[in-house]
C-alpha cells in the first residue's frame, strides 16, 4: 500500500479517487509535487514519510501562518512531528479541495485552530488564532485591551451553551452562516 517508484498504479489511482475529493489530474499532480520533495534514494521506498520542514518548502504552504498546525493535524506519525506520507498529503489536499463538503472543511478548520488539541477552542486558542491572523510582529498585533474585547465578543456570539469555550458544533454553526468559507478554505496546487 503506498506509492512505489514514481508511477501510481491504476487501481491505486481509482481508490484514491473514491476515498478523496480529488480528481484524477489533481491526484497525479499531487504525486508529482510530492515526489519532487523526496531525495533520490527515498523515491524508491514505498510509503516514505517527509519531514515537516521539507513539506513546508511547498510554495502553497510556505507563508501560511497555519502551516505548522496543518501539518500536525494531517500527520499520522507516531511521534507527532508533523511529517506527512503521500496519503496524508492527499488527505490534506482533499480537505482543501474545491469539491470538499462544508462539514469536512469546518471539521478540519476546527482542528487546525485547536492549538492545544483538547477538542475545544478556549481563550488561549482564540488568542493564538487571532495573533496568527493579524501577524506576529509588534505593529500588527492587537493591544491587550482590544484582544480582551475581541475574545469576549467572540465568546458572546458563538458560545451558545456558555461554557466559556467554543466546541465543534458551535464552530460549525458559525461557519454555516458564512458564504465565503468554502471558497477561501482552498489550497490548489
Amino acid at each position, binding site marked *: 500500500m503506498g506509492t512505489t517508484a514514481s508511477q501510481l498504479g491504476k487501481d491505486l489511482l481509482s481508490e484514491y479517487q473514491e*476515498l478523496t475529493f480529488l480528481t484524477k489530474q489533481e491526484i497525479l499532480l499531487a504525486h508529482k509535487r510530492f515526489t519532487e520533495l523526496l531525495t533520490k534514494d527515498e523515491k524508491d521506498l514505498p510509503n516514505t514519510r517527509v519531514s515537516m520542514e521539507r513539506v513546508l518548502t511547498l*510554495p502553497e504552504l510556505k507563508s501560511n501562518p497555519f502551516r505548522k498546525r496543518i501539518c500536525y493535524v494531517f500527520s499520522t506519525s507516531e511521534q507527532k512531528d508533523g511529517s506527512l506520507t503521500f496519503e496524508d498529503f492527499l488527505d490534506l489536499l482533499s480537505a482543501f479541495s474545491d469539491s470538499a*463538503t462544508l462539514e469536512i472543511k469546518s471539521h478540519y478548520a476546527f482542528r487546525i485552530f485547536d492549538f492545544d488539541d483538547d477538542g475545544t477552542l478556549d481563550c488561549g486558542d482564540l488568542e493564538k488564532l487571532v495573533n496568527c491572523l*493579524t501577524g506576529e510582529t509588534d505593529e500588527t498585533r492587537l493591544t491587550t485591551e482590544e484582544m480582551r474585547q475581541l475574545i469576549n465578543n467572540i465568546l458572546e456570539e458563538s458560545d*451558545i451553551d456558555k461554557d466559556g469555550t467554543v466546541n465543534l458544533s458551535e*464552530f460549525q454553526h458559525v461557519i454555516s452562516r458564512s458564504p465565503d468559507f468554502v471558497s477561501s478554505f482552498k489550497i490548489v496546487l
Partner: protein
Amino acid sequence: MDSEIQRQGSRNGYHGDQQSLRSRQVSSRVSNQNYPQFNWSSTPAEDDVEGSSEMPRDLRSSPLHMALKRAVRQVQQMQVPVVSSRESWKRNKAKSLRKLKDNTREFLYLFALWSKSLQKIGGNFGGGVQSFFLFLRFLVVLNFVSFLLIAGFVLIPSIVFRSVGTGLVNSTGPEECMEYDPNPQGLVLFYNYFLDLLSGTGFMEYSYMFYGYYNNTMVDDTNFSYNIPLAYLFTAVFYFAFCLIFIIARMGTAARVAVATGGSAVGNYSMIVFTSWDYGCLGDRATKLKQKNIHYRLQVDLEEEMIKKRAASLTTNQKVVLYALRVFMCLVAFGLIIGAFYGIFLATEFSQEKSGKEGILGLIFEYLPSIVITAGNFLVPLMCDQIALIERYAPSTTVIVALLRAVFLRLVSLGVLLFTLWRQITCDGNTESAECKLCEYNYNFYPCWETRVGQEMYKLTLFDLLINIAVLVLVEFPRRMVVDNWSNKLAQWVGRQEFVVSSNVLGLVYGQTVVWTGALFCPLLPLINTVKFIILFYCKRITLFNNCRPALKTFRSTTSTFFFLVVLLFGWSLATVVMVYSLAEIRPSMGCGPFRFFPNMWSIVPRSFSSLSETTEEFLFFIGSQAFSIPLFVLFCVVMCYFIALASVYGKSVALLRAQLKLEGRDKQFLVKQIEKLSRQLQIPQHTAGAGQ
C-alpha cells in the same frame, strides 16, 4: 488496548457516545492518544445501514485519515448486503450518475476561461478584486451566448434569405415618410471612414449592424416558412428573458445562503476570526497583506462598536443637530445628481440639433452626451464622498450609501438620455404637432429612428471603452511612474493607485445596460460588447498588476457578488422598460426595418397568429385572458404564503433548538459541579485517614 483508548475517548470526547461498532473494530492503528488529547478518530463513519450507494461519498466526507478510510471501505465491501435486485440496480444507477457528473465537471474545467489568471489575482489582491474579474467573465459569457442566439435566429436567416422572400404587408404610406437613403452621397473622403466607424454612420449605417438593414420579408416554401420580423421580435424578447434567467441562476447559491442566514445574525467578530483567512494566498507579500487587512477590519469593527456606544450616549440636542445635518447633506447630494441630469438633458438636445455636421467638430457634437455622462459619473461621486465626510455615518453605512448614490446616478443618467431621445423622436409625445403629424414620428430628423437610437447606444459603448483605455494610458501608468521615481512628499501622499472595486463594477453594469437597451436596434451590439469586455479584462489585469497597490479595505467576496448581480438587475429592468415602450407605443419607421407599415412592433404577433389553426388561437387567447390569469395569480399567492409559513416555522425551530442547546450546556455544568462536589466529599475522608496515619 483499543477498547481502553476508546473508553478514554468517550470520557472526554463529546462524540464518544455515538461510536459505531465498525469503527471500533477497524481502528487498529489508532495513534497513541495521550489523555487529555482529544480522540478525533472516534468520530463514527456514516450510517450505512441504508444505501451503500452513498458509501464512497460518505467515506470521502468522513474526517478519518486514509488508512482508516481504506479499512472501513474494505469492511463495507466484504459485507455483502442482502438487497433486492431493484435496490442494487438503483444503487448502480446512482453510482454511474455520480461518476458522469464528476466527469462532466472535470471536462468543463478545461473550458473555464482565464482560471489561472483569476487564481493569481485572488491570491495577490484578495477575494473582492477577484469577484470583480469573475463578474466580468460572467458578463463576457452572457454576451457571447446571447450573440449566438441572435446570430442563429436573426442574422443568419437574414443573410440567407436576403434576396428571397416576399414582403409581408403590401401597404404603403405617405411618400415623405418612406424616404430613407443612408448611403453616403458623392465623394467620400478617406478620414470619413474613420469617423463613420466611430459614430456608426455612413457605410456602417446601412449594414447588418443596425435595425434599418433588415427586411420586412417572409420566406414561405412548401414545407418551410420563416417570418423574419416575427423572428426578430421574439429573439429580442427571448434575449431579455434569457439574460434574466442566467442572472437569477447565478444569484441562486449566494441568495440561498443570504436568505438562510436571515433571522438572528451571527455577529461580525466570530465570522471574521473563523472564516476570513484565505488559504489560497501565495507568497510572503500577499500573506502580510492579508494579515494587515484582517487587522484593519478587526480594528475598524472594534472602533465602530465604540462609536456606536458613544453615539447612543449623545444628548437629544446633539442628535437633533446631527440628523438635521444629515438630511441637509442628503438634499445637497440629491441636488447635485439632479444637476447632472439636467446637464445630460441639455447636452443630448444640443447634440441632436447639431447632428449632421461634418468633421472633427461634428464628431464632438455627436459624442457630447457620452462626454457629459462620463464627466458627471466622475465628478458627482467625488463630491458625494466629500459630503459623506460631513454626514459622519458609521463606516459600513458610508460605503453602502456611496454605492447606492453612484448606482442611482449612473443608471438614471442613462435613462435621462433615452428620455430626451424619445422626446425628440415623438415630438414630446404629441403626435398631433406639425412635425409628427404625418408619420407619427419626427420623420424630418429621424427617417429611421431605430437606427439612430442604435447608433447612440453604439457610440456610448465605444466611448466607454475608449475612455477606459485612455485613462489607463494617460493617467494610471504616468501616476505609477511619478510615484515610483519621484521621492517627493506630494508623490508619496498621492501614492500608488488603489483598485476600487465598486466603481469598476458600476462601469460594467452601465456598459451592460447600454447594450441591453440597444440590442433591439443594433443586433450586433452583444458581439461588440463581448469583444469590448475581453479587451477590458486584459487592460484591467495589466493595470492591476503593474500600477495598483492592494486596497486595505476590501469587499467581502460572496455578498459582493450578490450585490453586483442585484445592481445588474436594476440595469436590466431599465432596459426592459425601454424595450417594452418601444415595442408597444412608438410607431416603427416606414422607410426601413422589418416592421415598416405596422402600427407598432408588437402587432406582428397577433397578425401571425391569425394564420395558426383555430384551436391554437383560442388556446393562446385564453391564456392571455383574465379567466386564466386571475386564478393563476391567486395560485401563486397561495404557494407564496405556504413558503413564507414554512420559512417562519424553520426560523422558530432554529430558535427553539438554540435555547435547548443553552439549557443542555447549563445541565452539563451543573452535573460537572455535582461530580466535583461528590469527588471532593469522597476524597476528604481519605485525606483525613491519610493524615492520621
